[in-house]
């Protein structure tokens, strides 16, 4: 019995851990999309968020006096700052300059991943190591610290309390976002801006302010996802965050624009992503030849497409994308 339980806990913990960068990314993207902005720059934002945190952590690790608190705080602040800058670039172009959102987002992705890779590679050069990735073991160890009583509570403790604090932060952020969007006046205004900015404007809502704030906050949350990924992998390696960014955008659809559903979605995506690697751990006597992991990696995307088709086929009004998603707003347009 406990053997099976152990397996389930192992699989679930693995899935939660894998899904967490996607959850951060998609929570951020949901807020952004609710304001009517399809930010395809999320992979770039996550890369910049990740590398900002990693660079800070890397240099702080080498400083003489180390303080655990600062070791956590500084990388997080750097991550938030880096992704905020990316969010501001996106906002300025799409809100103020009314540029095409798809084009801007894609350019931002190229730009952001370029920045990540460039600094990743430069730091490797700076540290004169032969490695292909920037390692921040010390910092990620600090971030791995879990609640002290977790191990004493048996499998419940392991299932519920054994994660690093960023996991709880991610879930709480998603829940708060869900609450704000659904139950508060701010959320109502935000949704109004995304559905019909002209009406919102007429009702006295400052459309641009809402768009700016939601996109920037969304980017900062997404940036944390990038940093989580780096912490999880003990450092930066080139080109690895991008796919998570696209999965985050996929998860937005999967969760039909609801952050609370995104939590479960992220766990499912995390599970699907690692399905192939999990099969041997489960000892289920199913053997797939080597190389089939690539086919397994398609599954999250196929699932997303199926959800996309179903939501569009059912045409339920509350499950649709925000009506003005992807369109820029100009007050004098008719």
């Amino acid at each position: 019995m406990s053997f099976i339980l152990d397996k389930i806990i192992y699989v679930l913990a693995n899935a939660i851990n894998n899904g967490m960068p996607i959850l951060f990314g998609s929570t951020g993207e949901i807020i952004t999309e609710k304001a009517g902005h399809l930010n395809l720059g999320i992979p770039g934002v996550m890369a910049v968020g990740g590398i900002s945190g990693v660079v800070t952590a890397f240099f702080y690790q080498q400083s003489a006096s180390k303080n655990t608190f600062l070791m956590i705080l500084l990388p997080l602040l750097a991550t938030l700052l880096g992704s905020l800058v990316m969010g501001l670039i996106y906002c300025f172009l799409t809100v103020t300059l009314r540029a095409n959102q798809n084009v801007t987002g894609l350019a931002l992705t190229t730009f952001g991943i370029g920045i990540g890779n460039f600094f990743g590679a430069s730091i490797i050069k700076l540290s004169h190591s032969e490695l292909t990735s920037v390692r921040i073991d010390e910092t990620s160890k600090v971030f791995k610290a879990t609640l002290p009583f977790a191990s004493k509570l048996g499998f419940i403790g392991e299932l519920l309390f054994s994660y690093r604090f960023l996991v709880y932060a991610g879930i709480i952020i998603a829940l708060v976002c869900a609450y704000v969007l659904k139950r508060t006046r701010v959320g109502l205004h935000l949704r109004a801006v995304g559905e019909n900015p002209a009406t919102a404007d007429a009702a006295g809502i400052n459309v641009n302010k809402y768009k700016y704030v939601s996109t920037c906050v969304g980017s900062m949350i997404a940036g944390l996802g990038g940093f989580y990924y780096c912490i999880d992998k003990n450092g930066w390696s080139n080109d690895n965050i991008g796919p998570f960014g696209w999965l985050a955008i996929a998860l937005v659809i999967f969760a039909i624009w609801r952050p609370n559903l995104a939590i479960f979605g992220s766990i499912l995506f995390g599970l699907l992503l690692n399905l192939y690697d999990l099969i041997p751990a489960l000892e289920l006597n199913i053997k797939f030849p080597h190389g089939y992991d690539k086919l397994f990696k398609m599954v999250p995307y196929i699932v997303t497409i199926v959800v996309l088709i179903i939501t569009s086929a059912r045409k339920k009004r509350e499950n649709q994308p925000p009506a003005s998603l992807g369109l820029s707003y100009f007050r004098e347009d008719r």
Partner: protein
Amino acid sequence: MVKSPTEKKVREPLFHIVKRDAIPWWKAWLIRIAAVLIALVVVAVITLVMTGQDPIEMYKAMFDGAVGNSTRTWNLLQDTALLLIVGLAVTPAFKMRFWNIGAQGQILVGCLATTFCMRTFTGKVPTAVLFILMIAFALIAGAVWALIPGIFKAYLNTNETLFTLMMNYIALNLVAFFCFRWSKNSGNDVIGIINRSSKTGWMPDIAGNKFLLNIIIVAVITVAAFVYLKYSKHGYEISVVGESENTARYIGINVKHVIIRTVLISGALCGLAGFLLVSGVHHTLTTDVEGGRGFTAIIVSWMAHFNPFYMILTSFLIVFLEKGAIQVASAKNLQLDDNFSDIVVGIIILFIIGCEFFINYRIKFKSKDKAEEARE
């Protein structure tokens, strides 16, 4: 008019924004060139501050890297052509407001189909037939990959941006899978150059130049695309559907039919780009054979306002910057990583995207307004 005191206190904004009716083409291009120049200055400052390298040296190295010798120049021209064909491929769909960001996937399945034909039919059919098979398979593969989201868009109005995006990753993993299956030393995922000695299924050289045929094919397609979009009935229907689906329906255009037909063309052209990449350039299949062209082409097409001839310029600009920036990385007097090229290109593209605002809109300052009113 007498103003009440309360009205006077209302702070008028310093400026407001109005849409321009039309702008002379030379003014528009002046704005764009100015944007590129400002971007170059920004890149120079960033280079200096972030890396401490001499920006003038960097630009010299970039220029040398792009057109420094004849091989580089031919490579530049070929890559421009390859980016251009993808740009041409996505354009009809964009004009119709079908955001096909799945060019990456459509190219990849085109590459996959071409590779499949080269591996399977080499030696079994005459070379001419082999080429026909390769092209046909690539066209069909790309078209099918675009058709799936297209059908759902036409009948269920499923969001095509997100659908095509997902299709990219399915294609990518499919290619990764076949790279593994077809690899020579099982497990290292490297297929290797196909038909290295016989060169069967390789695009033939013209006058001893291996780049020329690719470029000529794309040039022909460019002219064809221009004529198709501007002078054919199809092109007209595409722009009407793009402007307003309701108008299109009202004047008797079958919108579903147009959507499906257009994404078919779009996908097939992407498949053809895949064929060129495998048969004309790489002669093998890897997961990054597509080289990010699917996304860059969207920017190329959009910057050129969907005009095939402007696209020659925009794709040339981007490839020039990319090629130059990559060579900068290997320049001995500079210490820059080759990922720096993405940053340079990214900044310049962001500036070009931003400058469109100043082409489409005009900023009216308050004081100027008053002066204008007085004149009237």
